């Protein structure tokens, strides 16, 4: 059992509730012990970086400083299920290590509430933990359902592999592909696996977003995927909720379920779909569920 300081992020309390539910349903069985960081705040997301990056890093560092109080043997690993949270927290760690002035400035802000960031933290994406920390034989031993009729498109998105990570290649990652195979599913050829999902453009530039989202859906459809599997709440939100707009742009019809990887893990483990909140997405997963034996 490995212990992690868990940083769920704001989305898991709202639009990404199914992600939170499926994490809770799968992590304990795999020996992933997630202990929530107390009173965590916003990670300092992308939108805040545009406003003021030092303030954004200060927000990130408050979470990191609290995580450090949970350290055992002087080290602590933060687990983030959201790719945007992962990137900001991870950037904060690396940028403060590279630039002592930034770290001092951030620590000066934290001193207002009696906190201090030391730099004992490693930030990990939850997908990275499921793939690399959980031994393969443990994962295999939990599989009770057969997914061999299901073809899945592994969608990494941007911020799990960029700008910096220890997890996989920035443009041509393969570990998520291999993981879905390990779970027993077929993996669709998916050349756009690290293309941008349009992020916040869904609000500010809906026309451009429809094109970008459509590109991801089209590739999955053309390659015969039954579903796209994501590891990020914003990717899931955009791909799931704007299939009509994307279809209008590309003159196509899309009806592709968008799952979180933890939901696929749960399905393979035989956890009832209701507990994984799979039916709480916009696109119905029924056709996919019917293929699970």
């Amino acid at each position, binding site marked *: 059992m490995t212990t992690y300081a868990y940083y769920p992020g704001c989305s898991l309390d709202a639009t990404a509730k199914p992600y939170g539910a499926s994490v809770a349903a799968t992590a304990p069985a795999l020996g992933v012990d997630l202990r929530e960081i107390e009173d965590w705040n916003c990670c300092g997301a992308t939108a805040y970086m545009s406003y003021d990056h030092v*303030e954004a890093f200060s927000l990130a560092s408050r979470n990191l400083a609290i995580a450090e109080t949970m350290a055992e043997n002087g080290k602590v690993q933060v687990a983030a299920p959201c790719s945007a949270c992962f990137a900001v927290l991870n950037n904060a760690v690396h940028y403060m290590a590279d630039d002592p002035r930034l770290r001092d400035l951030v620590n000066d802000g*934290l001193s207002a509430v009696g906190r201090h960031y030391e730099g004992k933290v490693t930030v990990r994406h939850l997908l990275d933990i499921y793939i690399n920390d959980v031994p393969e034989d443990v994962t295999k031993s939990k599989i009770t359902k057969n997914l061999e009729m299901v073809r899945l498109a592994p969608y990494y998105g941007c911020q799990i592999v960029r700008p910096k990570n220890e997890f996989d290649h920035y443009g041509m990652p393969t570990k998520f592909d291999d993981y879905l195979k390990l779970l027993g599913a077929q993996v669709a050829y998916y050349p756009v696996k690290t293309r941008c999902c349009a992020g916040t453009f869904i*609000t500010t530039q809906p026309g451009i977003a429809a094109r970008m989202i459509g590109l991801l859906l089209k590739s999955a459809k053309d390659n015969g995927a039954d579903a796209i599997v994501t590891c990020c709440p914003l990717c899931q939100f955009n791909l799931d909720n704007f299939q009509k707009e994307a279809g209008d742009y590309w003159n196509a019809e899309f009806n592709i379920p968008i799952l979180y990887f933890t939901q696929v893990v749960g399905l393979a483990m035989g956890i009832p779909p209701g507990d994984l909140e799979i039916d709480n997405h916009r696109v119905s997963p029924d056709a996919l569920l019917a293929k699970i034996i």
Partner: protein
Amino acid sequence: MAEVGKAIWREAPDLGFLKEILAMPGGEAVAACIQCGTCSGTCPTARDMDYTPRQVMALIRAGYRERVLNSNMIWLCASCYSCYVVCPKEIKLTDFFYKLKQMAMRGGFENPASKRAEVLAKKFAGNIRWLGRSNEVWLLLKYFLSTNLLAAVKYTGMGLSLFRTGRLELLPKKSKSAAEVGKIIARYREGAGMRL
């Protein structure tokens, strides 16, 4: 793509702008740029921009403050970091563009095409200082009130679906972290001037 080679050269270059950029941390990147265009080639939104990322770097070096800070390029960066990881000169482009966004916001530059992204960034930051965490409903409410309330109508179907499945947090719940977040930001702003 914007006109090149005509009106642009009639403006007086503002080399103070180049100096300002070079003086900010990470700003020395503009000097390192070799104008290869790899950034523009990997950018998923380059085709929607008035100037591509490579052109923005060239404009900075030529001293065109207004054109750069009014450009929709900086606001059409979705933070996908595609350019960042392939730049042969290892320029941290995405971070560089964050700084240009901040300069544009503080300098009062308001490109109509970029205004919406700017409003979203400001409302998002304000929301975090208020609640400690993000609340999507209140963020979007404030955003659409400041931009175009009618545009919000398109999202009704999605909103209903989210509500039906219990995925909308209607009430702005103040996280316990909010008080601390407020103090940390206030402390940083007192010492402003030392902005990085």
